[in-house]
């Protein structure tokens, strides 16, 4: 497979691994947070941790859009389908996210709610056009990557004047979450993170520039990294070198897709349709100021929140679940009491166990033999 196999070359990986091992300094710590679920997935799926020296520790960040969606928002989506009788169109990953009362979109669907899985928001608009007698809501989630398509579909719905289509907007912003992680301890210097593997696809849209103030202010290096395993290895090496040199810059490993400015056209489209929310509740992180988008008043008729008068009700995460600490990088999935026992990908308690990009699910699916092997004392 051209253009993919090149980024999965084991020979090259071992070369980079050897360089990393040679360059890490015994007196230093390299606690690196990969922000995106895509990176978490690549690290787990390709067994990258086996290639890294013990001094380099990867901490899985909150960059899985499904994982950070709070229970209250899923409850609202279920309410739309059940109470308001709409056809709710959603990406597949959200279907199994646990909601209140033992529900999930999958269970609500089994009980008769009209919830349909779509592969793109175009499909949702098409379903609205094909079902003029029904109200159709697209359950929009995701970071900056999935926001431009949602903006485009709202603009298209307006241009075509589709009266029975609206969007339940839950789009969130990456830089705000990174800032929140640094600020949440009170003293940014106390945060146990030495550098960030920066978002890949998100950065194709927003560019590398938005992280510059972050890196300078918090004095933490950021390396924008592609999602292929070799990308991640190279980015780790770049972070090790910055840390060794005492630098805290934004570097771009993913130059084949990311520029400093990003995709201006997509940015303009997003700005036309969306505006900043004052605050948004993130699962695990709590309320994060100016970290999400809402639909501008000019497009209010396509805003499901306005159309159906949906208010947000905060719902506490299950007590036993350590998702909050894991999403902040304080705890490892294996530190959670319910990990792999009560909480598994088949029966997720916390959101990190739902999506294949969630830290717990990735760890359960690809890495848990390491934990068990260590505990069982088997070589």
């Amino acid at each position, binding site marked *: *497979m051209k253009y*993919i196999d090149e980024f*999965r*070359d*084991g020979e090259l*990986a*071992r070369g980079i*691994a050897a360089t990393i091992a040679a360059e890490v300094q015994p007196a230093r710590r390299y606690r690196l947070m990969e922000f*995106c*679920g*895509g990176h978490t997935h690549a690290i*787990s*799926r*390709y*067994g*990258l*941790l*086996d*290639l890294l020296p013990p001094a380099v520790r990867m901490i899985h960040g909150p960059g*899985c*859009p*499904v994982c950070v969606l709070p229970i209250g928002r899923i409850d609202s989506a279920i309410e739309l389908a059940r109470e308001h009788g709409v056809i709710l169109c959603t*990406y*597949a*990953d959200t*279907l*199994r996210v646990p909601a209140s009362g033992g529900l999930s979109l999958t269970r609500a669907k089994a009980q008769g709610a009209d919830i349909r899985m*779509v*592969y793109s928001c175009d*499909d949702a608009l098409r379903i609205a056009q094909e079902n003029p007698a029904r109200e159709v809501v697209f359950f929009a*989630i*995701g*970071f900056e*990557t*999935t926001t431009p398509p949602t903006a485009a579909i709202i603009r298209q719905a307006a241009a075509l004047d589709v009266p029975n289509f609206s969007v339940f907007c839950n789009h969130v912003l990456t830089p705000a979450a990174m800032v929140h992680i640094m600020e949440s301890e009170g003293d940014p210097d106390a945060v146990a993170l030495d550098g960030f593997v920066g978002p890949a*696809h998100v950065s194709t849209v927003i560019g590398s520039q938005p992280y510059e103030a972050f890196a300078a202010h918090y004095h933490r290096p950021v390396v924008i990294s592609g999602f292929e*395993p*070799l990308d991640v290895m190279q980015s780790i090496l770049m972070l090790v070198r910055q840390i060794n040199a005492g630098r805290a810059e934004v570097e771009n490993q993913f130059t084949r897709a990311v520029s400093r400015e990003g995709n201006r056209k997509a940015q303009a489209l997003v700005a036309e349709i969306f505006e900043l929310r004052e605050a948004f509740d993130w699962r695990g992180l709590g309320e994060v100021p100016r970290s999400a988008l809402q639909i501008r008043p000019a497009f209010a008729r396509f805003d499901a929140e306005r159309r159906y008068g949906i208010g947000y009700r905060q719902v506490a995460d299950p007590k036993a679940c350590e998702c909050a600490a894991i999403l902040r990088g304080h705890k490892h999935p294996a530190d959670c009491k319910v990990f792999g026992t009560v909480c598994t*990908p*088949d029966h997720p308690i916390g959101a990190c166990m739902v999506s*294949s*990009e969630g830290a717990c*699910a990735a760890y*359960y*699916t*690809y*890495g*848990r*033999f390491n934990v*068990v*092997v260590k505990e*069982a004392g*088997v070589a």
Partner: protein
Amino acid sequence: MSRYARPVDFKHGKVDLTHGSGGRAMAQLIDELFVRHFDNPILDSMNDGACFALPAGAGRMVMATDGHVVSPLFFPGGDIGCLSVHGTVNDVAMAGGRPLYLSAGFILEEGFPLADLKRIVVSMADAAREAGVPIVTGDTKVVEQGKVDGVFITTTGVGVVPDGIELGPDRIRPGDCILLSGCIGDHGVAILSKRENLSFETEIQSDTAALHTLTAAMLDAVPSIRALRDPTRGGLSAVLNEFAGQSGCGIAIREKDIPIRGEVAAACELLGLDPLHVANEGKLVAVCPPEDAERLLAVMRAHPLAAGAAIIGTAIVDPQHFVQMETVFGGRRMVDWLTGEQLPRIC
């Protein structure tokens, strides 16, 4: 001279409730479609059941059943008809059996085009003939529109297992070799490529095939084979996890040794699927003692349905019975059961 006023209209006709009512219309459909195409003396005798003698010195009998509800009914490389023959023939073959006879139960949806039904039955008849496993008895039911999706077919197969052949994952021992008969994921990707909301251009054909001549050759040459299984739903990872769980061993495989077509890998990449979880309908996994592995591999490669066979790993000592894989990247990871349904990634 036909017993019926006019023949069944297989060009424009549709299945209606009378075709399952037990009356003349049903008898005519059975005569002009099923009996005509399945065409064998046992079925021709038109009894309620099939009566047959076992081959002399037949050993033990094996019986397997498989329901088929595939959507779409027609896909690149096959259709529900040949699939329903291959699926059950393979289940018998994986038990070490030589398949002898099949039965077929049809549940038809009112309004289903008779032309499509005929196409499916002809495909089943061809597959059965090619496999040398006649369909000797069957059943037809018709349900109201919307109660089933076109046609569901359940087939049951009986066969005989020669004395001396003992297959089962409980016989797998640490050190045994794991062999795979060829490229993975072809069937699942071929089906996915034709799903209504997911059309993409691919040349991939389903690998649907009857594997009993392959298993016969393998067992003939290497009777020490410990276990055979075909990686259908849940893919290769499901079979390996079944083997691990049922044998009490762990399993270690090497990603670089697992054959996969470039187009299948690309489609899985695009859809966010793990090819290890994608269904196959014409592949098998075999486990044998290490000293027999090279010989078994040679026998497999000499058969047209396993020309791409490979040794992909070994059974290991692991009290957790995990399946693990050395990735192409040089790291290790677990190969877990599929969770839920295969979900495309969104971000």
